């Protein structure tokens, strides 16, 4: 029997090693898998390379992982937020490396890794400092920049419902990076609020097919906290 459901976040992350590249879902706090990040902290793994849209909000989740200096490098599009003080302090003191990536390039580089694409040309960023040193090519009269896939050891994502095959549904804009990150890692771990009986999720509504997901952990539902802006 295929059964990807594990009893705890700790069990799902027991094999994370120092130096691992970890995709972490979420756009600000929406879709951020706090329970998995807390379990990642508990593993003690250090020198992590983390890929997320942002660089943490407030004190919990990714902000906590960064504040504990477990992250060597972050690959993200928008680190600067009203409540990203843990990242800000480490960045200004040179204690964390930043690779800034336009948001669409970030999503597509992750998708490319999951789709077996070796690279792609995009007009995004052409002629800007974020394309400096990259190979360019004129296609149909427009300059394009070569971008490479982002492969990862782990993807930690938050979904809404899941079953023992790993099929997932999401909730509103908490979906964000979940589906593409699920494709791009050697091991994808998803939290869900509800475990569904196999066959009970509407096949027309499953967003992430189970083959992209390796481990599923049920967590209690808690309202997503506000984050990322000035109140």
């Amino acid at each position, binding site marked *: 029997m295929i059964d990807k459901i594990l009893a705890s976040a700790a069990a799902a992350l027991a094999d994370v090693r120092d130096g691992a590249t970890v995709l972490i879902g979420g*756009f*600000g*706090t*929406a*879709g951020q898998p706090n329970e998995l990040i807390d379990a990642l902290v508990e593993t003690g793994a250090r020198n992590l390379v983390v890929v997320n*849209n942002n660089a943490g909000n407030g004190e919990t989740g990714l902000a906590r992982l960064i504040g504990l200096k477990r992250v060597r490098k972050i690959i993200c*599009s*928008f*680190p*600067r*937020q009203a409540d*990203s003080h843990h*990242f*800000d302090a480490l*960045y*200004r003191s040179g204690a964390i490396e*930043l690779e*800034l*990536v*336009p*948001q*669409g*390039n*970030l*999503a*597509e580089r*992750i*998708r490319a890794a999951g789709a077996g694409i070796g690279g792609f040309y*995009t*007009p*995004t*960023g*052409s*002629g*800007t*400092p*974020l394309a400096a040193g990259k190979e360019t090519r004129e296609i149909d009269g427009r300059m394009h920049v070569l971008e490479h896939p982002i492969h990862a050891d782990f993807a930690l994502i938050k979904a809404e419902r899941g079953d023992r095959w790993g099929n997932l549904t*999401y*909730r*509103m*804009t*908490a*979906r*964000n*990076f*979940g*589906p*593409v990150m699920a494709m791009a890692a050697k091991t994808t771990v998803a939290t869900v609020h509800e475990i569904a009986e196999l066959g009970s999720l509407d096949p027309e509504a499953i*967003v992430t097919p189970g083959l992209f997901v390796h481990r599923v952990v049920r967590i209690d539902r808690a*309202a*997503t*906290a*506000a*984050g*990322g*802006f000035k109140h």
Partner: protein
Amino acid sequence: MNALVALQGVKRWSRDALAARVAADIPNGTVVNLGIGLPTAVANHFGPGQEVMLHSENGVIGMGPAPMPGEEDFDLINAGKQPVTLRPGGCFFHHADSFAMMRGGHIDVCVLGAFEVAPNGDLANWHTGAADAIPAVGGAMDLAIGAKQTWVMMEYFTKDGRAKLVAACRYPLTGQACVSRLYTDLAVIELVDGRAVVTDLAPGLSLADLQVLTPGVTLVGRA
């Protein structure tokens, strides 16, 4: 000339008036993306007969206004991470699809803020280059070059009184030759073939006064 002296007697457009003007110029039935900051307010000014599909980069189309107090759900947010609502017909999608909508040319109009804009349409809005500044680009580069039309909404002057419409951007670029129209508190300006064509001026402001306040850029009146 000191900007404040030259602007005595000029009735600048308020942020709300500017947002209303942008909203009125957005064609009915289009797909629109509003950037964070000043452009977000445009959503409050669509007329009753105006139906547009509001796209937000984080994976929603058919975005509605802010929820009533107490009804916020932070799984349903906009690009500024503020709570929003979903209109009938709205739907959700993942990030790669959301940016395919931009890059693929499926967004009719995007409205962005700016630090600097040049008459050739170059846009700088993500980084001042200051040593202690934390750079953050988000979806600006994808939007700027992906939308069919990129409009900018900004204050005409920086806080220290320099025009943000400049001969050539000094700040790091967001996109090359991508802006087609500027909405500011002093004037509405079309960027056409490298020229800055002033189509509207705030009450009490002459084209000659605005030209004096905009060194290095030749402003052209609408013929």
